[in-house]
Structure formats: structure tokens, C-alpha cells
């Protein structure tokens, strides 16, 4: 399974929270959900922290002044 994107991980985390908050999950499932939720939380946080910003400059076109 490929690593989910931040967006899909966050969405899954929120779905898990919602399911737990409804309080209908049996205990075994609640524990499994919690473990998965923690995993997703760490993944999201890691993605937020690890990504490095970058500003690139495109070279200005030299031919842009030519009439087309």
C-alpha cells in the first residue's frame, strides 16, 4: 500500500474520530481504530514538519520582446 497523501490521511483520521465519537464501535474495533488514528496523526504531522519549502526563479525569456 502506498503512503497516503496528507489530504487523504487527514480525511481518514477525521472519519475515525467521528466513528469513535458516535460510540458504537465495539472495544476491539475501537482499539484498532485508535491505533490507526494515532498512526495517521503521526503521518500527517510528519508530512507537515518534513516538507521543505522552495522558491524557484524561472529565467526570464530573452525572446519575449520579439513581436510575434
Amino acid at each position, binding site marked *: 500500500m502506498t503512503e497516503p497523501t496528507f489530504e487523504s490521511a487527514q480525511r481518514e483520521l477525521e472519519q475515525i474520530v467521528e466513528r*469513535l465519537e458516535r460510540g458504537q464501535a465495539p472495544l476491539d474495533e475501537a482499539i484498532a481504530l485508535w491505533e490507526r488514528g494515532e498512526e495517521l496523526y503521526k503521518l500527517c504531522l510528519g508530512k507537515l514538519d518534513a516538507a521543505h519549502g522552495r522558491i524557484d526563479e*524561472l529565467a526570464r525569456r530573452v525572446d519575449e520582446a520579439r513581436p510575434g
Partner: protein
Amino acid sequence: MLGAKSARSRSACGASILGVKVPALQYGDRKVYTVAAFNRGVGEWLARLPTVWVEGEVTELRRHPSWQNVFFTLKDPSEGACLAVTMPRGQFDGLRLDLADGERVHVYGRPSLFEARGDLRLRALTIERFGLGDHLAALERLKRKLAAEGLFAADRKRPLPRFPRRIGLLTGNDAAAKRDVVSTIVARFPAARVVVAETYVQGPRAAQAIVAALGDLCGEADVDVVVVARGGGSFEDLLPFSDERLVRAIAGCPVPVVSAVGHEQDSPLCDLAADVRASTPTAAGRLVVPDAAELADRLARSRAALERGVRRTFEREGERLRSLGDRLSRAPALAVERKRAALEHAAGRLRALSPRATLDRGYAIVRAGDALVRSPAQVGPGARIDVEVAEGGFGARVE
């Protein structure tokens, strides 16, 4: 083109092209014109055309102090058609227009042929710079035309990506707009990757340059949203952003475009064609990236809710277990109690059947010695009897 056959007689004669008298050569029954005569004929015919106004962009302006004439090419900005224009240098200088390449003008003149070369050109009598009113009228026409094509339709607008992989930023080299966008993006989402294309954003060449830069940005890997930013400026300064070529390029851009051009009150046509319009470069920066702090908050809240949710499940299960335990521990006592109640019930029923209950209702048991007295014959007068009632017994004698 003269025939190789010298046998053909060659004699000059007059002929007419559309009423213009031009000398022609006669080769038998074929009338042939020299190039000079042909050009002169066409030239004279052209000279009969009326004097007209022609609108276009000035390009390739050539002026030299030693030349008698000033030359430039008038270009149709949308179709690219070109027309050579000449004007006597003195007259041109007298207009004090200080024209630059790319400026839009109206030229009043008449067509003429430069006979030596057979080139058509417009001989200018006067030149007027395209005025504000002309610009406004042209803009309004263009706006209506593009709107009719559906270029500004709401259903064309695309949503911006929530997490852009790379953000294309198109700005002028005016530092402010670029700085505002970049600093807002970086402050909100430090992980953002931005690729900046600087270009001319002002002047006659700007529209073309912006279109080219937009194409470059879209060609960059992973760019999935483009911001076009330019600070405020005069109406003329912002004209390139209403140029048809640019407006079409923005509408046709493969990724969503955020337009942040000029101030709130300006509405260049590129704003209408863009997917989202931002009132300022800073607002554009806020639109293209999520707020990392807000995201982290939301994550933390999710995690807290996750823990709460699990704890609640544990508590609920624990509660259920405890209550089961309670019931279990109370079960033996309960069973004894139940048995006791059943016993009491049985005892009650038993008691109801005993003579005691009869005594309680006021009956008496009479004994003579050990025998129960059931008949008066059992006791004679003066005999001793024992009487038992509900609350005790007493002795008596029979009268």
C-alpha cells in the same frame, strides 16, 4: 518579361489600367507592361483611394536624422496583419508623440505604392495616440465579445487545489507584489514550493510577455495553480491585463489561475477570465495554500478527539462490566431472599389453615380434661372445663 523571340515586333503604345494611362509594349496581340509602368499604374490607382483612419500597434519604428521619412510597421494586435507606414520626418517630429514600439495608434493616411519596390504602404498625414476613451470603448467591446463566447462563465471556474504541489507565480519585477505573495505563502505554509516567473507587466510588450511567461510556468513540472500578481497602477498600466491574447491564455490555462491585478476597484478582463479573483497579492497568497498552523491545530484536535473517543468506549465497556459484577455479587443474597419470601408465603398459607386463625376470629376451644368438648353431653353441671381463646386460656365450671 520580354519574350526571347526577337521576331516579335516591339513597339510602345499607350494603354489603360482601370482608367489610369500607362504605356505598354505590344507583342503582336499581347500587351505587356514594364515593371516600372505596372507599378506606376497601380500606384496611381491606389492614390485614388480615399484617405482613411487605420488602427494598430506601432512596431519596428525607424527614424534617422538623415532620413527624409520616418518608417514603422502598423500591426493588427489580434490578427497579426502588418502594414508599412511612412511619414515625413519633420511632420512626424512635429507631432511630438514620442511613440514607442507596441503603442496603439490611429493613423490617418492614404495608401500608396513605393514604385521602386512595388511595396504597399500607408502614407501618414497624421497620427494620434489611442486615447483613454478609445481604450475604454475597445475594452467594453472586447469584454462583450469574450463574454458572449462564454469565457467568463461561472461554470468554467475550477476549484483551487487544497494542497498545491507547486505554485506558479507570475509577477513583474516590481518587488512589492511578488514579495507580498511569496511572504504570505511562506508564512501560512512553510512547506510550499513556488516557482516565480518575472516578466514585463507594463507597456506595449507586456501582454505578449505575460502570455509567454504563463506558458513557461504551466510547462514546469508539478505546477498545479498559477497566481498572476501585479500591484496597482494607472488604467494604462493595467491595460496589458485586458489584452485579448492574455485573457484567452488565462481562460485556456491548463491549471486554475488566481488573478490579483491592481486594486479592488480595478477590473482588468483577466480577472473575469481567471478561476478566482483576489483583491490583493496578499489575498492571493492566502487563497493558494492552507494555513499550516490551522492544520496543525486541527490535527491536534483530531488526536484529542481520538483519545476521548477511545476512553469513552473503555468507560462504557467498564461500566457495563461493573454492573454485571454487581449483579453477580448480589445474586446469592437475592436468591436466599427470594427463597425466604417463598417460605414466608408458604408459612402464611400454613398459618391460615391452623386453628389459631379460627381463635383469632373469636372462636374458643373447650376441653374437659384432655378431651375436646364437642357435645354438651360430655360435661355435666359443675364439671370443670378449660377454655382456650386467641389470647390465652382460663378455667370455668359448667352450670
